[in-house]
């Protein structure tokens, strides 16, 4: 089992190296400083989202509403500042909205026991619709003067390293610390591995699940803030894109089994690098949107199939039958 998981990480990392080298040699315009920066920037936001997704997937859940938390609370910040609020007030409001949203998700999944897939599909739709219908005046919320200085979160750099990369790195460290060093992390793995056993052992499974979704929503919001700061606007229609699939792709390709209890931050980083390189290379090759989708679809399918072979769930072996 351990061998299989290692080899999946290894394989994905090797593919990343090969692809990167191939693009660098054969693809004109790939190995330029500008492109590297663009690649890393795109990758950073995707990677942050991947961390949020990883947190819930390890706990045997899934969060399809991540893109809604990426678009709506940060969009609200831009909108409120545009309408004359101060930045701290706007940020606090967005934070409140995000936490409330995470609580609703968590409560529905942990206490009302609605499957995570349906819950987050529905709440994501609701939040996106709520934002577009009631909060925002235009589809793209524009930057305004009150936000001056905040764009550094997306466009600044420390020691030549672009800010989004730094934010991604810090988030990685925090999530990794939470997962591997704290009791909460141990609970998340326990719930993902065997929710019934975790419950019977006395793990407070429901509060932990709620916490997972609140953290995921906060991470989604952070990703949105970084994105808005890098492009000086929030295109709220991004919710209608297929971005959520890229996020799932990152997590599953990286080797975090959808059956839960497996993988960690390293897997997200590897998955992010691979997907980032793939998307960037395809964009430079000027592939059509549909061809890109086709390739992403094939890659995701391959990853999910590999996942079910390498990390089989034990349900069928659990049945011993009546003698």
């Amino acid at each position, binding site marked *: *089992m*351990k061998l299989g998981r290692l080899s999946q990480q290894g394989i994905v990392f090797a593919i990343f190296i090969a692809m990167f080298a191939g693009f660098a040699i054969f693809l004109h315009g790939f190995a330029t400083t500008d492109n590297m920066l663009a690649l890393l920037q795109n990758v950073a936001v995707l990677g942050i989202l991947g961390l949020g997704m990883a947190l819930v997937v390890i706990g045997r859940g899934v969060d399809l509403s991540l893109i809604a938390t990426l678009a709506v609370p940060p969009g609200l910040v831009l909108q409120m500042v545009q309408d004359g609020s101060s930045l701290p007030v706007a940020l606090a409001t967005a934070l409140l909205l995000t936490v409330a949203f995470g609580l609703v998700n968590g409560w529905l999944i942990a206490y009302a026991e609605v499957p995570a897939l349906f819950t987050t599909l529905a709440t994501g739709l609701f939040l996106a619709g709520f934002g577009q219908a009631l909060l925002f005046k235009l589809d793209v919320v524009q930057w305004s003067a009150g936000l001056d200085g905040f764009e550094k979160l997306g466009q600044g750099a420390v020691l030549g390293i672009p800010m989004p990369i730094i934010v991604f790195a810090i988030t990685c460290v925090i999530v990794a610390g939470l997962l591997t060093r704290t009791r909460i992390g*141990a609970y998340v*793995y*326990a719930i993902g*591995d065997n929710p019934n056993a975790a419950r019977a052992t006395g793990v407070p499974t429901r509060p932990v699940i709620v916490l997972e979704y609140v953290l995921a929503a906060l991470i989604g919001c952070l990703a949105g803030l970084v994105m808005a700061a890098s492009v000086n606007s929030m295109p709220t229609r991004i919710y209608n894109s297929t971005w959520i699939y890229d996020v799932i792709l990152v997590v599953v390709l990286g080797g975090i089994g959808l059956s839960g209890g497996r993988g960690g931050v390293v897997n997200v980083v590897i998955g992010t690098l691979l997907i980032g390189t793939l998307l960037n290379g395809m964009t430079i090759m000027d592939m059509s949107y549909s061809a890109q989708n086709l390739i992403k679809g094939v890659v995701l399918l391959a990853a999910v199939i590999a996942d079910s072979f390498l990390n089989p769930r034990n349900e069928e072996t659990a049945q011993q039958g*009546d*003698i």
Partner: protein
Amino acid sequence: MSENILELRKATKVYGGAPAIDEVDFELRRGEIHALVGENGAGKSTLTKVMAGVVNLTSGQMFVDGREAEPRTPLEARHLGIAMVFQENSLVPTMTVAQNLFLGQEAFYNRLRGIYIAAQQFLQSLNFDVTPTATVGLLGAAKKQMVEIARAVLHKAKVIIFDEPTASLTPEEKKYFFDLVRDLKKRGVSIVFISHALEEALQLADRITVLRDGKHVVTDNAANFDRARIVQAMVGRDLSNTLYGKRKSTSRPAGERVLTVQNLKLAPMVKNNSLSIFAGQITGVFGLVGAGRTETFKIVSGVLKRDFFHGGEIILHGRPVRYLVPAPAVKAGIAYITEDRKVEGFFETMSIARNIYLGLLAKFPRGRFLLSGREAEKAGQDWISKLNVRSIGGKAKVVELSGGNQQKVVIAKSLTQEPDLIIFDEPTRGVDVGAIVEIHELINRLADEGKAVVVISSYLPEVMALSDRILVSRMGKVVEEYSAAEATEEKIMYAAIH
């Protein structure tokens, strides 16, 4: 034409090393009603599943109508004229009676009206009072069973096998069912049925076969049997089997009353169950499957969900309690060690040490926000040596261990929580012989240390060997209590079956 419609010779089925049935000979005569009786795990279900093609023999032969035949699937069995009516019935609840009857035999195009008319005529020919247009899901248990039987007859079954046919029926429905079975017999159908209710077997069957521990004990005409003889045949064990052979000579006195359960209800499994558990002794809880033992103690420990909690009182150390989830019960010192360790026992991707450490984290979270690798390692090593878990070290994953060692890890995870009421549910199920002895010693040690210990078991010798006090459960409540000294296998079995 041979006398026996169905015959098994030296039928053996081995599950993971242990034989479920062992060289069993069985003969079903043409047009007879044949009852199969025996304890849980005696091999009744396996034997009937072999006949119905659900399970395939490891060795041995099967003859249908004098010709050797080995049905590999239920469909092949059906072509041989053998049909089985399962405990959990296999009808599609959202379809009508008629649709269910003809399921799998539809023509390419079916006129609904045609099906209804055919079904109506067919049901009338059987004298079954079921409306063909009724939706099956809305029918009662007895009517569902009629539909199942009708389907078997429609498939021209020569042999119909029933697994616990009367378990879900009311007394009137039972009587009607008996008439149906006798009517089927008149039509030349041969019948095999499994029953825990001995009176039924005596009343309905022409012949009775008793199985014990996977072996054939006796087959005789029902007229030559009475209750006492059946019970005797069911439990009369070879006492040279020393593992369980030794009887308790002294029993521990009862200490403080730790747990009292009063009038606990959980439809349909637990019915007004009342019992008490005392410190410093082992209370064995015996009963057949479906007697509500596991459910009762799962409610006590908060494992069963509150939605199904239907009332009654649980008093722990003199205070009424009601746990909606296991966490507060664990905190209050109750440990429930599950009968199904794969489903709710251990964490398979984690190491032994991590499994045990999680028990510690869940019970004593204070001061443990940051994990300590050293503490986990130490807890793991401690328990591995204390319980003699055999593995390649604390880093080994639980899923790689044998059943006995997995069970020890699950026990260690609970014991590290320092409980004072420990409930073992089938503690030695799927455990190798060496580990059984060790687990039994551990259970005895816990009682000597003054803990209140409950052992739920369907295996009489285990209950007899361990318990200071034996509660017998039947139909959702405790019906008898024996001290270790006065208990005999016959008495206990007599109380456990109606």
